[in-house]
């Protein structure tokens, strides 16, 4: 609890500058390792500080550990070693009831979408608001706005099985935005989108970031990463091999 802010100035060492290093880091990983039960070492020696309001690209080849890192942040998996802090609280030590509350403050786009199979597009998006206890009259307009942003107004009543790959992905994005979370964590949110739609989504994330929302985005989209020159954290075989401001996608993975 106290650890995270304290260690923030020197914590990440030379490799992790952070755009606003003095600010309280919203996300902090200290010396994190993750070994899956089958023995696979997905993360090793990961130190990472993400200050509030940052925009971070997480890159790395397939199997580097990007999704694993994201799973640790939302406590979908527990680290084998080290500590994970979200907003100053140790994610591992949260009490049962606190975990859902923490997750509600994050908007997540899962790599495999994780949409509820028996709910329509609109219901899936609404769900993220409903869990926060929002009133029905607040939910409806917010959902419509989110669907309009990702261009799914026409598909609002289709079930996930009736959607194209890109539409599934956009539904997942809409769900991550709808409750206006403090942080948006997006795992490969444009993999199934055409370049034009991809750019629109990225622009959207940039605008949201400008309004103060922290964004962490795992991606393989070299063009976008290189063009935007934001902070880039590169993983390779579970290690952070690069963490630079204004980075390019760099090396062909």
């Amino acid at each position, binding site marked *: 609890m106290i650890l995270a802010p304290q260690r923030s100035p020197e914590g990440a060492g030379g490799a992790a500058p952070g755009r606003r290093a003095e600010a309280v880091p919203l996300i902090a990983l200290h010396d994190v390792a993750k070994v899956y039960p089958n023995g696979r070492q997905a993360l090793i020696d990961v130190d990472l500080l993400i200050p509030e309001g940052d925009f971070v690209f997480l890159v790395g080849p397939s199997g580097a550990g990007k999704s694993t890192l994201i799973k640790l942040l*939302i406590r979908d998996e527990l680290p084998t070693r080290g500590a994970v802090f979200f907003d100053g609280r140790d994610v591992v030590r949260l009490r049962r009831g606190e975990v*859902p509350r*923490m997750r*509600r403050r994050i908007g*997540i786009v899962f790599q495999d979408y*994780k949409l509820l199979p*028996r*709910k329509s597009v609109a219901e899936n998006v609404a769900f993220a608001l*409903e*869990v926060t206890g929002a009133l029905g009259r607040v939910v409806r307009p917010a959902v419509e706005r989110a669907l309009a942003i990702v261009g799914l107004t026409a598909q609002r009543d289709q079930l996930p099985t009736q959607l194209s790959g890109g539409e599934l992905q956009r539904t997942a994005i809409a769900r991550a935005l709808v409750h206006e979370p403090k942080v948006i964590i997006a795992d490969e949110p444009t993999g199934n989108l055409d370049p034009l739609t991809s750019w629109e989504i990225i622009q959207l994330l940039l605008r949201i970031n400008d309004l103060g929302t922290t964004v962490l985005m795992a991606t393989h989209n070299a063009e976008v990463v290189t063009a935007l020159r934001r902070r880039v954290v590169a993983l390779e075989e579970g290690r952070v091999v690069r963490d630079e401001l204004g980075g390019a996608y760099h090396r062909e993975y």
Partner: protein
Amino acid sequence: MLRFLVFSLRRAWQGFWRNVVMSLAATATMVLMLLLMAGLVIVLTGLNAGLEYFERKVEVEAFLVNEASPPEIEAAMAEVRALPEVSAVRYVSKEEALQRFREFTAAQGQPDLTDVLPSNPMPASIEVDLVDPLVYGEVVKTLEAQEEVVDAVLQTRDVVEALLTVTGTLRIGGLVVLGLVGLTVFFIVINSVRLAVVARADEIEIMRLVGASDAFVRWPFVFEGMLVGLLGAIVTLGVLALAYQPLSRLMFDFFQVLPLDFGRFVMRDVALLVVGSGVGLGALGSYVSVRSYLAR
């Protein structure tokens, strides 16, 4: 709170229809199990009513001396009638006794031996019905004290006890069977609700990852289980209502001696039992099943 309830109920209703194959399969199981249980309860209640009828026939009988005069007999009967253990007292004349014996032996297929007798050997008697067939209390002593009237008191204690052993065994046997079938019903229903929830484990996981609290995930499932139980109970009651006429006729044929108001009361109890256990088991099954996914 109320908002959450309404919300959960709506969710439950949706969940039921969007999983309609699963839901109906679970409902079908529910119906069969409830029918099994209701059928057993009805049969056992009938059996019980039959047994009670037999037990009610238990009585104390005092044979009277041939010389006893009507006023003396009246006095003796009044004294016995005053005892708290006694529910009724009857006088049986010598002629009545002979008649009964003849009927009895005829029913048993025994040759009628009374024809060869020189005179009526059967004594007159006083028959005493007891409130509780096992509590004789002062009855026997009181009767034996009337020496000028009573010749001997029939010690039917052995017979009564033999009879009560049989009815007791049947009752316990029935309860054991009911208990076993009840347990079976319990596990089967829980099991099939569980299967339906297991099939939706992924859904539960997704809900949790998006920030749903345990209550938010649980209650729609519990209500859905209750819905399955309620629907199952309604179908069961429908089937029972259709089967009521032929069933009650069969019951009367079988246990000819049932009190006439048997059917109506039992059906009300059975209806309560069916609805209660349907809804209860549905809720419990869902609760338990969902819990195992929330516990993680």
